[in-house]
């Protein structure tokens, strides 16, 4: 796999020359591989949101470079819009950015800005709506008549419709009920599976990240503290707790068992894995 986005020694300082001067991202280097499902986790204020806004050129680094493919995205500032079409960014609570009269028009806003033909826009809008699980019947409704969860889906579809090479979602499930959360994440997983595009999900919920991603990057205090497969990251559960993050509930159970003297792999992070680990302890018989 080769990296599609490479971040080199990125620093971003807010409010330079004022008493509020603060580095939200400090000397971060990371790589996002083509086709992977990457999770970025960190507690509030760890610099997650600032970091991802650099990936599509919404923020310009105070120092450091962001490469898309092998090009520095700020090599030609006039072409920064092209970067935004290739790296789709869904903000936190994206439903607050809806503005059009109909759902259809709102989803079409991105593709329209790309200057695509009517037919192509139509295809993309319908495809994107299907990916996020919106009924065709909703397309002609006003986005303001929809429920919160549906609005969220419309906003995500608005970015998916640009068919970006990389899709970045900032806390896509924040504020949704458990059922809505599960089904939205299922939609995103399906999108990743079927399209094969790179997906980056930012979250502070360990459970959510653990169940979905191939690789995790952990941010704390404006820098990267850990990076690896969920298994690698959760095997360092104590360190995660030390930087103020939770570990998945299943991992917590395993950690506790281990503390009480059960020789179980502490890095399990899904229910299925825990079951397997426990049955291995019992000598191969299934537990129910």
């Amino acid at each position, binding site marked *: 796999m080769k990296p599609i986005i490479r971040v080199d020694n990125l620093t971003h300082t807010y*409010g330079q*020359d*004022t*008493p509020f001067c603060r580095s939200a991202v400090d000397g971060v280097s990371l790589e996002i591989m083509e086709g992977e499902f990457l999770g970025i986790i960190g507690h509030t204020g760890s610099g997650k949101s600032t970091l991802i*806004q650099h990936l*599509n050129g*919404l923020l310009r680094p105070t120092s450091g470079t962001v490469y898309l493919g092998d090009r520095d995205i700020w090599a030609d500032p006039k072409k920064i*819009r092209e970067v*935004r*079409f290739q790296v*789709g*960014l*869904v*903000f936190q609570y*994206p439903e*607050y*950015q*809806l*503005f059009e009269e109909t759902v259809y028009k709102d989803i079409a*806003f*991105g593709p329209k*800005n*790309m200057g695509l033909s009517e037919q192509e826009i139509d295809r993309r809008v319908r495809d994107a709506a299907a990916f996020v699980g919106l009924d065709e019947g909703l397309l002609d409704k006003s986005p*303001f008549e929809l429920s919160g969860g549906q609005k969220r889906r419309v906003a995500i579809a*608005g*970015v998916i419709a*640009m068919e970006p090479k990389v899709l970045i979602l900032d806390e896509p499930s924040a504020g949704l009920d458990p059922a809505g959360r599960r089904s939205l994440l299922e939609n995103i997983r399906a999108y990743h599976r079927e399209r094969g595009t790179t997906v980056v999900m930012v979250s502070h919920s360990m459970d959510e990240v653990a169940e979905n991603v191939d690789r995790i990057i952990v941010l704390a205090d404006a820098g990267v503290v850990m990076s690896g497969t969920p298994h690698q990251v959760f095997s360092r559960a104590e360190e995660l707790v030390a930087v103020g993050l939770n570990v998945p509930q299943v991992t917590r159970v395993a950690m506790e068992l281990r503390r009480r003297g059960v020789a179980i792999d502490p890095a399990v992070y899904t229910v299925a894995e825990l079951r397997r680990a426990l049955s291995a302890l019992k000598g191969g018989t299934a537990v129910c």
Partner: protein
Amino acid sequence: MLKDITLGQFFPGTSLAHRLDPRSKIIITVVYIVGLFCAESFVSYGLMAALLVTGVKVSGVAPKALVKGLKPVLFIICFTAVLNLFYTPGEILAQFWVFKITKEGIFTAFFMALRISMLIMGTFLLTYTTSPIALTDGLESLLGPLKKMKVPVHELSMMMSIALRFIPTLIEETDKIMSAQKARGADFESGSLLDRAKALVPILVPLFISAFRRADELAVAMECRCYHGGEGRTKLHVLRYHARDYLVMGAYAAILASVLTLAHFGL
């Protein structure tokens, strides 16, 4: 672009300028402005400038931040200076076509520019060292006597503090919405005037919706805490003048008096 707006920004601190009663600071600022408009000579301008510099020094506000506040009005300052430069009658120094530069013109232009910049820096010093809440509290208290004339002073000051309170929130919100629309390829910087005006729709619609939503939420929250207007409402932090307030106000009064006296003698 949006982050350059410093209107009503407050830099917390513990200097004498921060600890003064907001009412004294408002009075001082008004007195200072009156003094600026009465000043007519190098000596009186010198006094006013010295006052400003002392104020800045005492407050510990970075002079850079004050100068930055001048940026938005730079055009107006230059415009008035240039107008005064060419249109003040008097002893002609240079002349070309219909333009005449007079000695008096140079002086007036210079003083005008100085007056406006000092006026703005002076008022910025007030907002930099006084939190919006303290500011409206002070105003409410100063305007108190108007209540007798049925002026809804409390309601006005409540509206003002809510408006001030929401300026940063709305700016942040605008920033967020702009970023989100930019992420979908919205372009606010190029195209004709009409194109640019149209490009604002994706910002304004969500902004208005969220402003109304916030207003609703705030009203409910206030209602829940039994807000019912100014009648019988007491304050947690009651404003009280201290010795320092009388001292500083006395000093300002003395300086203003000397400026007025100087002006009277044409100095």
